[in-house]
C-alpha cells in the first residue's frame, strides 16, 4: 500500500471519528434545544454531563482532518476552501458560538439558547458543504446538498440520543430511548430523500449513488439502521451504540465510494493533489508515533468518564 492510500485511510478514519464523537456533541445540542416534558432540566443536565469532559477532545478530530488536508493535499485544500467558503464560514461561526456558549453556560440562560441553535447550524452547513462537494461545482445550495444538510443534523441527533441511552438510567433513559427511535426514523427518511432528490435533479450523482459498490454499502447501512431500531426496541442499548457507529461508518463510506476516487469530483484526486513524498512520509510517521501516546490517553479519558451513568 502506498503512502497516498495510507494517508487517505487515516483521513477517512479521522473523519469517521469526528462524525461519531463530534456528531454526538452536536446532537447533544439538538437535544438541549428539544428538551421537553417534566424531566426537561434533567435531560439538559445529562447532555452537559456526558459532554463535559470529552467535548474538547472530540473536536480536535476536526482540527486533525483540516491539518491532514492542507499538509498532504494542499491544492485540494485550497480549492475546497475557496469553493465552499460560505458554508464553511457558517460551520465555523456555529462551532465558535457553541464552544463559547458551552464554556459560558453558567453565565446565563441566553448562552444556553445560543448553544442549542449553534449546535444545529454547524452540522447542517457541514452537510451542505459535503453535499455540495459530492454534487460537483460546489453547489452547496442545491436541493441535494440541502437534503444532505438535514441528514447530517438528523444523524447527529440520532448518534447523541443512542449514546445517551447508554449513559443514563431510569425514566431519563426512556426519554432518550424514545428520542433515539424518533431520530433514527427521521434520519432514515432524510437518507431516503437524498437519492430521490438526486434522481430528479442531478442524474450523474444519482448514477454514482446507484453503482454496484454504493448499492452494497447502502444496503448494509440501511441494515445497520434497522438493527439500531431493533436493539432500541428491545432495550439492548450497548448494542444499539455499536450499530449506530457502524451505520455512520456506512454513510461516510457511501459518500467516499460515490466520489469514485476523487477528493473533488472531476478536479482533484488524492494522487494529483498529493504533497511531495517526503511530506507524506513524515506525516505518516508522526501519526504512527503520535498514536502510541494518543490511544492510551483516549482510553484513560473515556475509561474514567464513560463507565458510569447519571
Amino acid at each position, binding site marked *: 500500500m502506498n503512502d497516498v492510500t495510507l494517508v487517505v485511510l487515516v483521513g477517512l478514519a479521522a473523519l469517521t471519528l469526528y462524525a461519531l464523537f463530534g456528531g454526538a456533541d452536536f446532537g447533544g445540542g439538538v437535544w438541549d434545544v428539544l428538551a421537553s416534558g417534566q424531566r426537561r432540566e434533567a435531560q439538559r443536565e445529562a447532555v452537559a454531563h456526558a459532554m463535559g*469532559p470529552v467535548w474538547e477532545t472530540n473536536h480536535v478530530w476536526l482540527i486533525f482532518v483540516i491539518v491532514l488536508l492542507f499538509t498532504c493535499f494542499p491544492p485540494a485544500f485550497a*480549492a475546497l*476552501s475557496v469553493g465552499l467558503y460560505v458554508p464553511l464560514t457558517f460551520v465555523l*461561526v456555529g462551532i465558535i458560538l457553541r464552544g463559547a456558549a458551552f464554556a459560558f453556560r453558567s453565565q446565563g440562560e441566553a448562552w444556553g439558547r445560543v448553544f442549542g441553535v449553534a449546535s444545529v447550524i454547524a452540522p447542517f452547513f457541514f452537510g451542505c458543504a459535503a453535499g455540495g462537494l459530492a454534487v460537483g461545482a460546489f453547489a452547496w445550495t442545491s436541493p441535494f446538498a440541502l437534503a444532505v444538510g438535514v441528514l447530517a443534523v438528523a444523524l447527529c441527533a440520532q448518534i447523541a440520543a443512542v449514546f445517551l441511552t447508554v449513559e443514563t438510567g431510569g425514566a431519563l433513559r426512556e426519554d432518550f430511548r424514545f428520542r433515539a427511535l424518533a431520530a433514527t426514523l427521521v434520519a432514515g427518511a432524510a437518507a431516503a430523500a437524498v437519492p430521490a432528490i438526486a434522481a430528479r435533479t442531478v442524474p450523474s450523482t444519482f448514477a454514482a449513488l446507484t453503482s454496484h459498490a454504493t448499492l452494497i454499502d447502502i444496503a448494509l447501512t440501511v441494515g445497520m439502521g434497522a438493527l439500531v431500531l431493533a436493539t432500541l426496541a428491545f432495550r439492548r442499548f450497548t448494542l444499539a451504540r455499536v450499530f449506530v457507529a457502524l451505520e455512520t461508518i456506512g454513510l461516510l463510506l457511501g459518500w467516499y465510494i460515490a466520489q469514485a476516487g476523487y477528493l473533488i469530483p472531476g478536479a482533484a484526486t488524492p494522487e494529483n493533489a498529493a504533497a511531495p513524498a517526503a511530506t507524506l512520509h513524515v*506525516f505518516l510517521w508522526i501519526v504512527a508515533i503520535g498514536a502510541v*501516546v494518543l490511544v492510551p490517553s483516549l482510553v484513560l479519558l473515556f475509561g474514567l468518564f464513560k463507565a458510569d451513568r447519571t
Partner: protein
Amino acid sequence: MGTSLAFHFVFAALGVGLPLLMIVVEGLWLRTGDRRYYRLARTWSRAMLALFAIGAISGTTLAFELGLLWPVFMGNTGAVIGIPFTLEGFAFFIEAIFIGIYLHGWDRLSPRVHWLCSFPIAISGALSAAAVVSVNAWMNTPAGFTLAHGVVVDVDPWKAVFNPAMPTEVLHTTLAAYVFTAFAVAALYALVLVRRPSDSEAALALRVAMLVALIAIPLQLVAGDMSSRFDAHSEPLKLAATEGQFATERGAPLRIGGIPDAAAHTTRFALEIPRLLSFLAFDDVNAPVRGVDAFPTLEQPPVLAVHLAFDTMVGSGFTLLGIALWWAFATRLGGRVPARTLARAVVLSGVLALVAMEAGWLVTEEGRQPWIVVGFWRTSEAVTTAPALDLAFYGFSLIYVLLAVTLGWLLAHLHRRNEA
C-alpha cells in the same frame, strides 16, 4: 486574520502559562496541606476550562482561516509547513484529553495522580506553542524546500521545522507566555489586595505568581538578547528596522525611542548611546551594522512601527524586571504583604506584560513586511480572492471581541465567586 491572531495570542499564552502555575499551587497543596493552595488550584482550573474552550475554538478558527483567507498561499506551502501543524495537532489532542481528565477528575483520582495529570497539560501546551512558533520562524527564515517556477519542490519537512530562527524564536515566545501569565495573575490578585489587604489567599496567589515572574523575566531578557543577536547575523534588515538604523555605520549607537522618518532616512529625537548597538549585536564596539538603506526600497519594512514596537517591548520588559525586583526586596520574596504603591505597580505590570507581548508580536510581523515568507512570497500575493471577505472579516472580529469581553468578565469574577 491579524485580529484573530492577536486574540489567539492572549488565550494561547494563558493556556501555556496557567498550567505551570497550577502545577506549582497544586504541588504546594500536596506538600504543605494548606487548603488555600487547593482552593487556588480549583479556582484556576475553572479559569482554565473557559480559557481552553476559547483557545480550542480560536485555534479551530485559525485552522479554517488559513484556508479561507489564504487558500493560494496554503496550497503552495501546505506541504512544507503542514508538519509542524500536524505536531501541534497531536500536542493539542493530548492537552485536550488531560484537561478533560484534570478538570473533571478532582473527585475521581487520588490527589497525587491528579497532580501528575497537570504535567502532560503543561508540556503539550508548550510543545504545541513551539510547533506553531516554528511556522512563524519559518516565515522569517524559510528552509526545507526550493521553488521551481512557482512550485514547491525538494521538500524536507524537518529542515522546515528546525529552520534557523526556530530555536531563538521558540524560546523567546514560550518565555513570553510564562512572563505574561505570571504578571497577569499577579496583577489580578494585587488588585484584590489593594481592595482587601487582609485577603490571605490573594496574598498567597500573588506570591506564587510573582516568584514565577521573578524567574521568568530575567530569562526572557536573555532570550530577547539572543533573538536580536540572531537577527544581527541572519535577519540584518529586521535588526536595522527594530533599532531605527537607516545608514550603515561602524560603531553604531543604540537608539532609545525617537521617531524614525523613512523619507528623511533618519531617526530623530532618539536617546543615543554611542557604539552600544555594535557592541550588543556583535560584541565589538566598532563592528559595522548594516542600515535599512542598504536594502532594496521595495523590501523594507515600516521602520517607524517596528522601531517603536520594539522599544515598547524592551522598555516594558525592563520595567517588569524593575517591578519584580522591587517586589522581591520590599516583601522579602513575598514574606510580607506588599505596600499599596507596590501593589498598584504590580497591577500595572499585568498591563505592561500584555503590551510587551503584543508589541513583540508586532515586531516579528511588521518586521517581516512586505513579505509573508521572506524572499519567497509577499503578503499581498497570499490573500484570498473569495467574495465578501470584508464581511467575514468584520464578522469574525466581532465574535472575537464578544468572546474576549465575556471571558474577561468571567475571569475577573472568579475570585469573588469563589468566596461567595
